[in-house]
């Protein structure tokens, strides 16, 4: 017997009747079928239970007649049993299901980027004006040799393969399946135009995207979806996905509903089946096994492409990263606990993993102590919200950053956290052709490019302010950072001084 739901709507929809012209844009735009036109009464009715507050109707309403706000209806005040805690129990009592959510951890944990301040030059070592002077953001990712031997102006030994980035920002892994092809095309085009890379995630590479191969990082994850020889050859680098910040330690699966024809062809699985990525790679049970897969991929691509290993930031991340470097990875990507996802169990997303700021500082420190920092490049993500986060990350020791949530926001995401439903009204996290076509890949690319360019200029401004004219000089330069409102221990882990010191 189906149980009556005790869950009340999360949001209230207020329709200003004086402004509403009954044009039905809201009715047409909402894939959750919140708005409905009643012909008899000539009225638009909104069913708030279905509303996810994605702001699509609000944004597109031509007369600004709609407002969505948090439902002010409250249970009796209780600091322990918050409304969210109670709601979770109601849902689980009704369904017996694991709570599923989308995007990154939204809990009020500290954001350490916001407790770190940057330096600027005053009087001595004058600042540099990036508008008038050269400012180098070019970044090379890959293994760097311990020493260079140069004879008659020529390198004696070939450098290991490197990725060349015009700016230290890449689009992080998002699979075709979790997001629409138009969303991926937007990012791929932006990456190509701005001289950086996008990442396929574990969804394979759609045939339309092979033209972006030079700007593609192809991922190999535990389900090995869409992995074949041409795919490995197509990318500029290969990334082995071990873990993801939003759901460390668990696998994932793309529900059969999203595996429509194109997704099925790209992942190379039958239509309508769940695409299950097991939690571990079943050929990796140790660092030695990881080395085996790294070299298996290098052998398959003739040692021409850097191999990255992506892990979630977890408690022993420094020791794990050391193992990965020794296993032969060229790049280590670390994803913090705020990293986004198309779908993750709520309790995992909100309770597992550590902040990227700590993970990055710990890994960089450890690799330096072991004198193997040059053997790998570090790429961090989860979550990078603005250019200042990037500058701080690089000063803490990152070579580059991965952005995904920010990139989707640029495409129009409104952070409703319902990516897993496949009903994204913004055409991003959906495979419904009617919804996906709302995102024009050319305009999407323009937005993503604009974001990269804006951040590039801001990074240059901040570097110039510090009197630095190349991003290389900032890398691991923690003297450019000061902590504010942090404990001794936090400062120690971050390896930075307190403001005023």
């Amino acid at each position, binding site marked *: 017997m189906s149980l009556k739901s005790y869950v009340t709507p999360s949001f209230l929809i207020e329709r200003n009747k004086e402004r509403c012209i009954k044009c039905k844009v809201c009715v047409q735009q909402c894939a959750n079928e919140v708005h409905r036109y009643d012909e008899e009464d000539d009225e638009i009715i909104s069913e708030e239970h279905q509303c996810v507050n994605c702001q699509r109707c609000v944004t597109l309403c031509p007369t600004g007649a709609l407002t969505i706000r948090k439902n002010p209806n409250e249970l009796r005040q209780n600091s322990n049993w918050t409304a969210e805690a109670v709601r979770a129990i109601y*849902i689980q009592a009704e369904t017996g299901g694991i709570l*599923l959510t989308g995007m990154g951890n939204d809990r009020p944990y500290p954001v350490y980027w916001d407790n770190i301040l940057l330096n600027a030059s005053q009087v001595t070592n004058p600042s540099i004006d990036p508008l008038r002077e050269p400012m180098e953001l070019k970044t090379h990712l890959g293994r760097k040799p311990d020493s260079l031997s140069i004879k008659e102006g020529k390198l004696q030994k070939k450098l290991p393969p490197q990725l060349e980035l015009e700016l230290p920002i890449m689009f992080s892994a998002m699979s075709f399946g979790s997001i629409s092809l138009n969303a991926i095309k937007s990012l791929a085009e932006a990456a190509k135009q701005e001289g950086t890379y996008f990442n396929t995630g574990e969804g394979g590479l759609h045939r339309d995207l092979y033209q972006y191969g030079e700007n593609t990082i192809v991922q190999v994850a535990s389900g090995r979806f869409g992995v074949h*020889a041409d795919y490995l050859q197509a990318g500029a680098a290969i990334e082995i996905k071990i873990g993801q910040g939003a759901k460390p330690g668990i696998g994932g699966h793309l529900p059969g509903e999203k595996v429509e024809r194109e997704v099925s062809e790209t992942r190379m699985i*039958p239509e309508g089946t769940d695409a299950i990525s097991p939690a571990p790679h*079943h050929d990796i049970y140790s660092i030695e096994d990881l080395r085996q897969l790294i070299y*298996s991929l290098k*052998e*398959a691509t003739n040692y021409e492409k850097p191999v990255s290993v992506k892990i979630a930031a977890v408690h022993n991340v420094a020791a794990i990263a050391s193992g990965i470097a020794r296993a032969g990875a060229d790049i280590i990507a670390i994803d913090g606990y705020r990293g986004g996802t198309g779908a993750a169990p709520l309790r995992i997303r909100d309770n597992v993993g550590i902040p990227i700021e700590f993970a990055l500082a710990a890994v960089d420190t450890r690799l330096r102590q072991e004198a193997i920092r040059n053997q790998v490049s570090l790429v961090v993500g989860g979550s990078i919200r603005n250019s200042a986060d990037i500058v701080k990350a690089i000063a803490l020791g990152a070579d580059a950053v991965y952005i995904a949530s920010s990139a989707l926001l640029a495409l129009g995401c409104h952070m409703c956290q319902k990516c897993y439903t496949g009903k994204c009204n913004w055409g991003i996290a959906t495979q419904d052709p009617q919804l996906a076509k709302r995102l024009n890949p050319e305009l999407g690319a323009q937005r993503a490019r604009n974001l990269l360019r804006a951040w590039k200029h801001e990074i240059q401004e901040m570097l110039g302010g510090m009197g630095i004219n190349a991003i290389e000089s900032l890398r691991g330069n923690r003297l450019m950072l000061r902590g504010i409102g942090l404990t001794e221990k936090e400062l120690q882990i971050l390896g930075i001084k307190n403001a005023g010191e």
Partner: protein
Amino acid sequence: MQTIDASGMLYRDLNELIRDSVSRGVKEIRLINVNGHRYIGDGLAKEASIIIEGTPGNDLAAFMEGARIEVHGNAQDGTANTMNGGTIVIHGDARDALGYSMRGGEVYVRGDVGYRVGIHMKGYQDMNPAIVVGGKAGDFFAEYMAGGIMIVLGLGLAPDEDIVGNYCGTGMHGGIIYLRGEVAPEQLGKEVKVVSLTEEDTCVLDGYLDNYCQYFKVKREEIDKKPFCKLLPYNKRPYGNMYAGW
């Protein structure tokens, strides 16, 4: 036919030689004194035949697309890892994670195989990978299997020996397993059921069994002495109802 003596050679050098030869158009390569060399035939996307005398190392034919590899000896872990096409014939045993995520091609093993064999194997459109094992298989056989065909013959088993280990077909959501003989229910993952064979099954099996007999010079009557059982997943979406939207 080109012969390469692998003794004392590093795997990287050996594999480079193989790649060079294949790209020069050599159609048949014989490797002698192979002793643990890893990644042989890795990512090989051309038609070629490699005959291996000795024991190749891990990840033999990983990501392979279309070549044929015959091993006169045992194979180690990770053979046919994410393989997309081609044929592997092993005149001995193979070890763990054989055919992990394999999507195409065929693997024939004369003897036994280790743990996690055929894990996450998947079929797709006209790609229907197959693994045929002459002896027995270890635990977690066909775990997460999503497509393709797995056949275990159980030839030469002692009367008290099991044809597969525990957790056979756990998480299976596609494909077919054929076991020659019986399997105890407690050895099966809870996502699979035992069903009887149809005529179509017999036709499908025939082709693979004839190949096995031909490759390893086994008499077909020997195999036909015992009937097969067939394992299928209950559901192609075993975890479809696990979640509730937050």
